[in-house]
């Protein structure tokens, strides 16, 4: 079950990152991984696989005293999974098959690092330590042919850098994804539609309006009109500093859409600067029902809805009226 879910999120990430067989091949090319390297890696395959547990331990022993690695290591389940994945990684590194399945394996580990918030610099240091260990063992094994041993190790190092590229990209991508999600959340938060009275909505617009935000505003307004059965919408644009023709068109589209649904739109808070620029831009103001300030707009709206505001009789202490 969990396995399946992981599989899917890894595949999704690969898709989101645009990791196609072609782009993976490109990545292999960038680190210079060639057929010759595969032969050399094959020569040290037994050596690395034979000591895989030792190397895995090397990686985690390096991490364990570091505070920055605590989030990953303090949780037993996560630590065990990381250890298992790292062991699989080391075994796969010498299998000479660096295609989609290998890449997805790397992403799975990257997702884990990213979830526990493992610092990249910590990961890099531990990975370097691990490579040093492998290097030392390879060299020791080729005591009598050091040049050959070095060549073998350098071929494996290409794979290591192929891996690093993937892990770093994936962690950065995940981080950017969070930023994107937060931006979306802020955008949505910044376009509240408030119900003031029965069938009356207030839409305060604050800040910069781009095409995307204009779409969100229109979308949420239209849905609110239906949900609240609104007849009148007061759109307050006091918080919009500048309006160019593009923004003006967005606003007019929003108003037109609201009208199509049967709601009247009253615009308030049009500063004299904005009004002048609208005139200068040649925007058709005849289409807009504008009222100077928010208070006036609300009065106009209540009037349209047939409400009449009457001051009530004051009954509290200190009221001006006294009984004779």
């Amino acid at each position, binding site marked *: 079950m969990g396995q399946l879910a992981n599989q899917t999120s890894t595949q999704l990430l690969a*898709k*989101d*990152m*645009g*990791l*196609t067989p*072609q782009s993976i091949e490109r990545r292999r090319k960038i680190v210079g991984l060639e057929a010759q390297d595969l032969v050399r890696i094959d020569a040290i395959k037994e050596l690395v696989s034979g000591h895989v547990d030792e190397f895995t331990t090397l990686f985690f022993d390096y991490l364990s005293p570091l505070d920055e690695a605590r989030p990953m290591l303090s949780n037993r389940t996560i630590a065990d999974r990381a250890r298992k994945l790292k062991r699989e990684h080391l075994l796969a590194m010498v299998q000479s098959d660096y295609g989609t399945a290998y890449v997805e394996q790397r992403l799975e580990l990257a997702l884990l690092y990213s979830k526990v918030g493992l610092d990249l610099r910590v990961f890099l240091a531990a990975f370097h330590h691990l490579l040093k260990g492998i290097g030392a063992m390879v060299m020791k094994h080729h005591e009598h042919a050091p040049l050959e041993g070095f060549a073998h190790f350098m071929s494996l190092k290409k794979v290591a850098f192929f891996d690093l590229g993937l892990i770093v990209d994936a962690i950065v991508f995940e981080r950017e994804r969070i930023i994107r999600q937060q931006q979306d959340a802020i955008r949505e938060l910044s376009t509240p539609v408030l119900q003031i009275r029965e069938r009356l909505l207030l839409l305060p617009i604050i800040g910069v309006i781009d095409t995307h935000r204009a779409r969100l505003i229109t*979308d949420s307004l239209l849905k609110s009109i239906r949900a609240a059965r609104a007849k009148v919408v007061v759109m307050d644009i006091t918080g919009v500093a500048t309006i160019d023709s593009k923004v003006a068109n967005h606003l007019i589209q929003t108003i037109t859409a609201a009208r199509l649904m049967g709601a009247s739109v009253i615009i308030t808070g049009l500063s004299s600067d904005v009004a002048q620029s609208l005139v200068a831009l040649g925007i058709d103001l005849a289409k807009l029902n504008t009222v100077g300030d928010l208070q006036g707009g609300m009065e106009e709206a209540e009037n349209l809805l047939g409400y009449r505001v009457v001051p009530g009789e004051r009954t509290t202490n200190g009221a001006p009226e006294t009984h004779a």
Partner: protein
Amino acid sequence: MMVVSTETSIAVECEQDIVTARQKGRELAALVGFSHTDQTLLATAISEVARNIVNYAGIGTIVLSSVEDQGRSGIMIVAQDHGPGIADIELAMRDGFSTGNSLGVGLPGTKRLVDDFELTSTLGVGTTVTLKKWLR
């Protein structure tokens, strides 16, 4: 590289086919994962290009495909006819222009409903309109 998987091809000859085309388009858009709002935008776009076929060329086809490109997925609509073709594409793409009996929003309006819009036309040979919309 873009991967195209063709889902449906609809022969457009009469008004009923316009309705069929946009219903199929909406179904595919839902399958690809588009929101209800985007499904409506796509169905409206299909309606417009299918209407153009019926009005100007008489018969044609609409091919609906799902597409994958650089990790993003979307939908592609190709409307093709062998009608008279469009003499002045630039003029046809100008808001408010229409030779037929429409509101003159047809092609430029359709362009606003999608992300990618491509129009090729040769006089006496026919017209192809390709629309793409991507999941955000």
